[in-house]
């Protein structure tokens, strides 16, 4: 296998990135989509994907965002936004919900990140700023719980530094937990053997590798 270079185009837009993540979720998988950008992945799952969504506030079989009359204050997602219920759904309390996550029963969890390290460490809960009020929510539970953790983020911060780093400098959410990293410029697979580049978008492998401090291999 080799890296697929999508050239003659720019980096992935936010919706395009969500579509690429959706494409890689196996049919029939049980999936938790984190708050924010990961939530948009749901909009790109094919109607017949058979994917079943978990929301850690106590539901399996979550449907799309609720609109108009569908809005029910008792039916919200982890981002506290109103959602809907699909046939075959089930509800459970928080201890059971996180048992489902922590116990490794979900196939994929998709999260955002500030930084991901070469060995798959994740930093996504705290900027480390001295005056920041720490708030973790379910981030640490999700990071270590699912069989596979996908992260989606922009590859470079606004200051141009890569967010795929040799070692995270932000406070950690979980160790060696990220298996795939989806960014606007490239898709990385992380594992014990290091980082491989599965695809690039609007940039070639060599240029990408040159811009990273983390050694990467062709996929």
């Amino acid at each position: 296998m080799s890296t697929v270079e999508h050239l003659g185009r720019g980096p992935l837009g936010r919706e395009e990135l969500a579509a690429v993540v959706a494409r890689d979720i196996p049919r029939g998988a049980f999936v938790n989509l984190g708050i924010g950008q990961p939530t948009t992945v749901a909009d790109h799952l094919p109607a017949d994907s058979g994917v079943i969504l978990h929301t850690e506030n106590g539901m399996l079989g979550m449907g799309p965002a609720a609109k108009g009359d569908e809005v029910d204050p008792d039916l919200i997602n982890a981002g506290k936004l109103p959602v809907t219920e699909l046939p075959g759904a089930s509800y459970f309390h928080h201890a059971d919900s996180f048992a489902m996550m922590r116990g490794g029963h979900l196939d994929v969890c998709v999260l955002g990140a500030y930084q991901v390290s070469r060995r798959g460490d994740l930093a996504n809960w705290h900027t480390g700023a001295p005056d920041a009020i720490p708030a973790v929510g379910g981030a640490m539970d999700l990071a270590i719980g699912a069989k596979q953790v996908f992260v989606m983020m922009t590859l470079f911060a606004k200051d141009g530094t890569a967010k795929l780093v040799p070692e995270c400098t932000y406070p950690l959410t979980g160790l060696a937990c990220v298996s795939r990293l989806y960014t606007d410029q490239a898709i990385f697979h992380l594992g014990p053997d290091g980082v491989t580049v599965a695809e690039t978008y609007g940039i070639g492998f060599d240029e990408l590798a040159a811009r990273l401090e983390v050694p990467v291999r062709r996929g």
Partner: protein
Amino acid sequence: MTAILTDPDEALAGVEDGSTVLIGGFGMAGMPVTLIDALIRQGAKDLTVVSNNAGNGDTGLAALLAAGRVRKMICSFPRQSDSWVFDGLYRAGEIELEVVPQGTLAERMRAAGAGIGAFYCPTGAGTPLAEGKETRTIDGRDHVLEYPIKGDVALIAAHAGDRLGNLVYRKTARNFGPVMATAAALTIAQVSHVVEVGDLDPETVVTPCVYVDRILDTKAGEAA
């Protein structure tokens, strides 16, 4: 035996200064707002409050915080767009904060209710939230030793309850209620629909009556 009450103030009778109070809800779903308002009137102070968040806007838990009655918050996610009351108290050094991962928060209360002395949990291992905690490698994976969180009082909201105290919830409003009910010495539930004994299907009861000490019938309060 469960007391069925219609007066919120009566429902909160006896909560003592220094209590640990578990407060249900995730967002507004399952939030026992009537009971929190009654707790504010009741006046107990020096409280430790355990809840997923640390209050929103200026009402409910935020109002309890604003009234200076909470010494310490144990929660997973205090910082929100509208958590200015907590934020102000925290930055002023006027409130303690213990941040606990959301699943560990639930599991620590479950342990309190289930008579488990402590448990090794993989969540948070190697992160700042594990600092100072005992850790152990089990089957090649790092775990953090976590202790139960037991409440003196739990304030929860349920959809329906029978006169024995059995409770059912509605959709994701179930969240922390069933766990907190098991973890407190005194569990007080505000219930929208109080029904007769036998009206709930025994297969569908989520919180068995043994966990519920007082039910506040919120519909009866409205009618009065």
